[in-house]
């Protein structure tokens, strides 16, 4: 089965190439590797899919970024207490 650029672009627009069934994934990668029309564009999309996958794997470990502000913590705690005593 020969893939067209349009089919490749559509597949990448719909989801992660790593989630494709193996035979389709192989065909897609081959097409992107050798096609002069869509290589640049689609290779970039695949790169972003790789990046986001890596980010999702790492996100839990990352600890930079602001903490929940103290006033908000207190407010949420108060709301939680209210909720728990209401139920």
């Amino acid at each position: 089965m020969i893939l067209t650029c349009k089919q490749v672009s559509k597949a990448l627009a719909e989801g992660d190439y790593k989630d494709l069934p193996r035979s389709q994934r192989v065909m897609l990668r081959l097409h992107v590797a050798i096609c002069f029309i869509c290589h640049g564009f689609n290779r970039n999309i695949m790169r972003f899919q790789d990046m986001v996958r890596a980010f999702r794997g790492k996100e839990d470990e990352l600890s930079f970024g602001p903490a929940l502000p103290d006033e908000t913590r207190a407010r949420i705690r108060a709301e939680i207490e209210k909720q728990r005593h209401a139920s």
Partner: protein
Amino acid sequence: MTRMKTTDQPTPKETTHPEQWVDEYGDYLYRFALLRLKDPSTAQDAVQETFLAGIKGLDQFDGRVDVKYWLRGILRNKIVDHIRKSVREHPVDDTEGQDIVDSYSFKLFGVTDRPTKPWQFDPSRAYEKNAFWKAFEECLGKLGDNMRQAFVLKMLEGMPTEKICKVMNIQANNLWVLNHRARLQLKSCLEKNWDREEE
């Protein structure tokens, strides 16, 4: 005759203490929300709503996953709700990118006229470095709201196109253009901000 001893391990549901949730999971959930919603007070609202929904739904929680991830699942839905609300207040300009969608390169090949320039560095070599993800988060924050929402829903959350179109009240082509623009800007932002920090 050997008897199978049943495990008396308590489930996450039984061992969790909601009064400690804010301390245990508040910062984690807040950062998760902040990345996706950008506005601090909206992110805080989403976190508060998550905890309250968690309290209400604790009886139905089957305890099969860790409370942290169960709460995160609730938060993801709250994030979608907030995006839906934000788009209602600031609708997407669906005329943008019409030139791309009308072009032959898009119609025939699903690509843009202008070629994508190669990356100035190989980002995959930086994935081990926390500093790269800090730059990634900052660059995501610099995107226009609609672009970030499209990127978050499609690429981070992996939501099906049809559902995103309902949430954001747009057509599939608009979503495509938003994500295309988001990727272009993220790439250029990362190239600018990461190269400088790389040893």
